[in-house]
């Protein structure tokens, strides 16, 4: 008889460990008195019979939870800790996982899917608290495919009937930008490339807002846009030294992966900035191109709302009544702008501000790949006669069948013969 326990009723030392359903009990084999119930004891006398049991096994709860679910819940907690999420997130994510596990489809799913489900629960929790976590990050952490992740994610959102808010762009900008290793000089980052975090953050945010307004963000993955915006912001803060640095090199310096679409987003953003620059009289004369416009990004951003309104239209072209407003732009010019342009009333000689371009997503501005002609109105009834000749064109003649069979046999022989014996 293990331990030094004896029955409080009859004093016998014959105590047997027995289980009542999932509750372990110490029972006296002489008089049948239950000495301890469960292992979380309540009275001082009971504690004398206490067995040493670890906490996680002390409640009967885990006996009802399957091993794979326990593993999943552990993974959820680990993932939350790795991502350094607040503790409340952990509980919510665990609750979602348990909720999902109640569905038979999830219980019977493959292990790979259950792994991915862990990530889905954490992602949903973060989204609901507006914590900017991208699916790419989770997939990297889980070593999972984005396709598998997306399938499970859509399924679980539908299954649990959850309302998952969209990714918060502003927060994502802050988190993503902070991960760029450019705020301190290091052996790989020369001093002229180091930048102040706050300045870069605010400028990136403005550029991302500009991209959002001009249809560069809708329907696209948010991260490449932010990469392009960060690059432009960084370049524009010290253009003289940084114009020579390319986007790829910038990402390498900053120790951040370069997403594929970032270069085309960069071109689109530069095109928008160029259009805006055409509305500023003193920039028109400079005849900017995609490289030189970077130097003036600060000014363009300062007046971005009016410039976007003027540079773009979403309906028929408006009259250029707003040209006189450009005089006001003369103040706050930045370094080296000609004051001359602001003194002219009306368009400068020989060069008017470009007529407003259409403010549309890039996919609508590109010419259509092929024009689909509208299908001819068919008067088919579905019950027409089918001629024999039409059907026969699809059938092989007996000679063709024989030839085909011979060819097949020959091929089989060839592949059979080439196999090593």
């Amino acid at each position, binding site marked *: 008889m293990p331990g030094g326990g004896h029955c409080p009723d009859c004093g016998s030392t014959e105590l047997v460990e027995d289980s009542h359903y999932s509750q372990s009990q110490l029972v006296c084999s002489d008089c049948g008195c239950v000495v301890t119930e469960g292992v979380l004891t309540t009275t001082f006398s009971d504690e004398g019979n206490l067995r040493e049991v670890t906490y996680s096994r002390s409640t009967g709860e885990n006996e009802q939870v399957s091993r794979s679910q326990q593993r999943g819940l552990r993974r959820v907690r680990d993932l939350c800790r790795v991502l350094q999420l607040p503790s409340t997130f952990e509980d919510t994510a665990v609750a979602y996982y348990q909720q999902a596990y109640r569905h038979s489809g999830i219980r019977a799913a493959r292990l790979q899917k259950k792994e991915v489900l862990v990530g889905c629960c954490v992602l949903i929790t973060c989204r609901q608290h507006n914590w900017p976590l991208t699916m790419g990050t989770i997939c990297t952490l889980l070593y999972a495919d984005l396709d598998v992740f997306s399938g499970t*994610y*859509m399924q679980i959102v539908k299954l649990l009937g959850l309302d998952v808010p969209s990714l918060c762009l502003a927060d994502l900008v802050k988190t993503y930008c902070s991960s760029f290793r450019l705020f301190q000089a290091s052996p790989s980052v020369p001093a002229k490339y180091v930048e102040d975090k706050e300045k870069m953050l605010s400028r990136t945010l403005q550029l991302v807002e500009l991209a959002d307004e001009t249809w560069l963000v809708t329907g696209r993955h948010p991260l490449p846009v932010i990469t392009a915006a960060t690059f432009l912001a960084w370049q524009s803060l010290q253009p003289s030294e940084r114009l020579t640095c390319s986007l790829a090199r910038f990402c390498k310096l900053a120790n951040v992966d370069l997403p594929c679409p970032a270069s085309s987003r960069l071109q689109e953003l530069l095109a928008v900035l160029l259009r805006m620059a055409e509305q500023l009289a003193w920039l028109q004369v400079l005849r900017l191109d995609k490289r030189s416009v970077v130097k003036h990004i600060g000014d363009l951003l300062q007046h971005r709302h009016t410039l976007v309104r003027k540079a773009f239209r979403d309906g028929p072209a408006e009259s250029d009544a707003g040209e006189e407003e450009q005089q006001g732009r003369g103040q706050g010019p930045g370094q080296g702008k000609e004051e001359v342009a602001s003194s002219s009333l009306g368009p400068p000689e020989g060069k008017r501000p470009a007529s407003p371009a259409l403010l549309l997503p890039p996919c*609508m501005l590109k010419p259509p790949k092929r024009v689909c002609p*509208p*299908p001819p109105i068919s008067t088919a009834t*579905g019950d027409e006669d089918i001629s024999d000749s039409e059907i*026969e064109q699809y059938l092989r003649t007996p000679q063709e069948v024989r030839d085909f069979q011979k060819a097949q046999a020959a091929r089989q022989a060839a592949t059979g013969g080439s196999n090593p014996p």
Partner: protein
Amino acid sequence: MEEEQTYLELYLDQCVAQDDLAPSRSLLLSPVVPDDAYMPNPSHPETVFNSHLEEVKETSGNFSSVDLSFLPDELTQENKDQSIIRSKHEIEENYKTQSQQSRLSLSREQDIGLGLISNSSLSNSHSHLYPGDADSVQPSLEKPNSMPLVSITPMTPMTPVSECSGIVPQLQNIVSTVNLACKLDLKKIALHAKNAEYNPKRFAAVIMRIREPRTTALIFSSGKMVCTGAKSEEQSRLAARKYARVVQKLGFPARFLDFKIQNMVGSCDVRFAIRLEGLVLTHQQFSSYEPELFPGLIYRMVKPRIVLLIFVSGKVVLTGAKERSEIYEAFENIYPILKGFKKA
């Protein structure tokens, strides 16, 4: 391209301006309505409407020149009349339940241009108008305000309805199934048919293709067949029959049982950019927009049960329909919602 756009804008402006009842033109199926009988007088819309209708009423029996090719197969002449009476009843009920004015719409597209009396509530309320009692039709037809038939519809009010969408979704793909009711030897089919491919290790069915209508069929050894790629219901049926004929000619006692359309896919273009982020905010319970996964917004409409893929360029794909009318109805439901996001 530019001209088309401005024409569309003009047309839409015109529709917006027609807030009062001012039926300038309407394409009615009744062939005998003289145009000059119209009195487009906005100040007396009701009388205009009534007088117009009375004219049409006389000719409501004459449907011989009407194109009914879209009606389902099993509709015979009597059923046609039945359904026409039923829809008359529907429209009449609808007219009475709303005391507001409806207007005759301008329909311009190819699809059997139907002019339909409508209100936005027509499509919402047609569900409870469905099984119109044949009994109550007779007495109500005698009423002075009884509405003559202005459109011929099978069971559901379909196609270009008012509120100026003027856009008709094009059907792109129809998936149908049919039972050939005999066991098939797939190896034999693959041997004797030129247009068949059979790779049992990859997939347990013969993949057969025909050129006219351009479709693909999956033929299983149990005798069941799936036909995909047709652009209309009739074409799908014709194609399925051709595949059955091919199988017949190969020596199998194939029949043609339980032909059923399982899925219809349509697409169209609303011609303006859409702020998907805004749409997902206002219609969160129906929409799912994950730009990290897919560039389009997935809108699961409840009534009719259709899934729409909405893209930022304004292109809309509608799928999950068993009937053409569901696609049209879904588009008419989504168009005003999308218009709300036109200039965000």
